[in-house]
């Protein structure tokens, strides 16, 4: 009944209204030159406070992650997505730190997921797309806990260069073409921030205080 009340109101309000044409969709930009895209991504991401580490392959990526873990409080607790690159690199890096712990979040046991992730010092993920134009990570939820990139104070995303796309429209078009049915797709552009007090920029309000992107030339050793 409420539905009909609103829709009847809309219909009678629009009686006789002319519908202007939809603008044509601009063709998706096809990513060709990964060198250029990588440089653009790095520039834009750094401009919003993301720390970008460009490395050759997995062994260098592990070194970078070890460095990030060393900067955390002693015996850091890590959580990671079960995606292969995140799992492999997180496992190797955590093994190099005394008393560090790692939990791969792949189950759907709410209480455990939420308690482990909430207590973690760092969350490690991959990213499904990198958007060069805005320095943005696109994170799907399919099999990956959203909270891993949200609750821990440090978020590390480990991504290979073949995930680079020129702009958001192109990345989202590809996601649709892949038939993604995720309940949530998150675009992340820099760490959590606010300027609600006298327009002073403060980083790390509710989400991560630091965002690292480890950008790999190749995913295999």
């Amino acid at each position, binding site marked *: 009944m*409420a*539905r*009909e*009340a*609103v*829709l*009847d*109101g*809309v*219909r*009678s*309000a*629009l009686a006789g*209204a*002319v*519908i*202007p044409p*939809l*603008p044509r969709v601009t063709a998706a930009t096809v990513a060709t030159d990964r060198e250029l895209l990588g440089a653009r991504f790095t520039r*834009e991401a750094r401009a919003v406070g993301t720390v970008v580490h460009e490395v050759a392959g997995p062994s260098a990526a592990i070194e970078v992650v070890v460095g990030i873990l060393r900067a955390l409080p002693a015996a850091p607790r890590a959580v990671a997505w079960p995606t292969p690159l995140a799992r492999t690199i997180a496992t190797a890096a955590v093994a190099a730190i005394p008393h560090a712990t790692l939990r791969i*979040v*792949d189950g*759907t046991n709410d209480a455990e997921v*939420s308690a482990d*992730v909430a207590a973690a010092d760092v969350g490690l993920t991959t990213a499904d797309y990198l958007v060069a*134009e*805005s*320095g943005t990570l696109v994170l799907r*939820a*399919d099999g*990956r*806990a*959203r*909270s891993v990139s*949200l609750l821990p104070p440090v978020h590390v995303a480990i991504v290979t260069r073949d995930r680079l796309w020129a702009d*958001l429209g192109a990345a*989202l078009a590809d996601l*649709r073409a892949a038939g993604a049915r*995720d*309940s*949530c797709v*998150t*675009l*992340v*552009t*820099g760490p*959590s*921030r*606010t*300027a*609600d*007090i*006298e327009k*002073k920029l*403060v980083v*790390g*309000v*509710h*989400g*991560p205080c630091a965002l690292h992107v480890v950008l790999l030339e190749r995913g295999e050793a």
Partner: protein
Amino acid sequence: MPTTRASGWRASPASPSRCTDVAAPAPGEFRARAAAAAADVALHRKLDTASLRFLDKRAQVFAALSDADARRDRARAVKAHAIASLDTLLPELEQRFTANGGVVHWAHDASAACAIVLDIAARAGVRLVVKGKSMVSEEIGLNAALGAAGIEAVETDLGEFIVQLAGEPPSHIITPAIHLSQEDVAELFATRLGEPRHATAEALTAAARRILRAKFRAAGMGVTGVNFASAESGTLVVVENEGNGRMAMTLPRIHVALMGIEKLVARDEDLAAMLELLPRSATGQSLTSYVSLITGPRRTAEPDGPDEVHLVILDNGRTRLLADPVMREALYCLRCGACLNACPVYRRIGGHAYGYAYSGPIGAVIAPALLGIERVADLPYASTLCGACRDVCPVRIDIPRLLLEWRARIAAAVPRPWGERLLVRSWRRIAASPALYHAAAAAARVAGAIIARVPALVPLLPPLAAWRRARELPTFAARSFHRRWRERRGTRFSDGA
């Protein structure tokens, strides 16, 4: 139920029912509030600092954006199409969102919307609600409704959290605590939360993070607004910088999204077109830290996320704008707040003076339709018509034209005082006749000279006294421009004349 057409403002003496009357202004209060704010120099400083910084950053990112004007035209076309197609797009959104496992609710007015949220909360035994920033929630007075039902509602956007502690409504669409200084916030945290008197914005933010993190984990329901929705796939888009929206949409078992009917676009492709402009206009960012694209509750293969996602689609007077071919374009608004920052009137009186969730130039356009013009008849006059709002609007809403249209409707419905009518009628005669104009100008010069010499006369002339209260009376030049022009004709400008 057929909607009353919006053409006359008599349509709605009692129609915009509300959960509470907190934000519903009474006629005449605007002038008093505006006068008080206009005298508050400290407020001006805070408003200028924030607004001008926003405008500056906005100008920079638009200058760096290729084809910015074409992108604005495209965004306007996307909204124009969607608003004129709402009768088909709304059912399409409903169908897709439901197919994705979400639940759609329809609310004709504010109290219906509040009742829907209360009902969802009651069924699930929710005692604590965490809220992402939502202007619709302010519009419908949801916090008061939840509070009356014994449910704690916590604002989690830092600015909203601050104004909630202060017991005030937000005073800006994007930066709700724009009217408070860092010292004001430290004082609030000390008195209301028992915090030590924090000396930096960083320390205050860290305190809010700590306090609110516990709330996110304990809450049974998260409530957010919606920035855009795509009918094609039933996707809701939530734009934010802090991560509190993500928390409210991820941790509690139930997510309720509140959306006005005007937030729709037809296609998924249109979302990227709108996302290009909203953060740039609002805060001067290429993209905000977080954008969430939500299509429903968590799937079986997803480790976290809400089990229930509800979408409340709200009319609350919007169909009155929709039915009005002149005013309809006000529904294109993205709520970026750029027109507030650009407005010289807003920068002197702030958001609270307007007395409504939506302030500034766009608020002065939509409040008369949403609330009934008789309740906010002063708002369309709170503008110098300078056009700065139109220049910064990402979808090019012609706000000055719409404000003039409201003024014309007000004047047509309620006759202006006889003195004012006489003045306008006389002016029409005088301006149409050179002889009368010169005579009137000469008389004004004489009168001006007398008043300048005898200022005590001013209070005896009521319209002049009112005008004079905030202005200096200009002194007329001894000789008029026309006269000087005639005198010079023979000399310097003779060739061209």
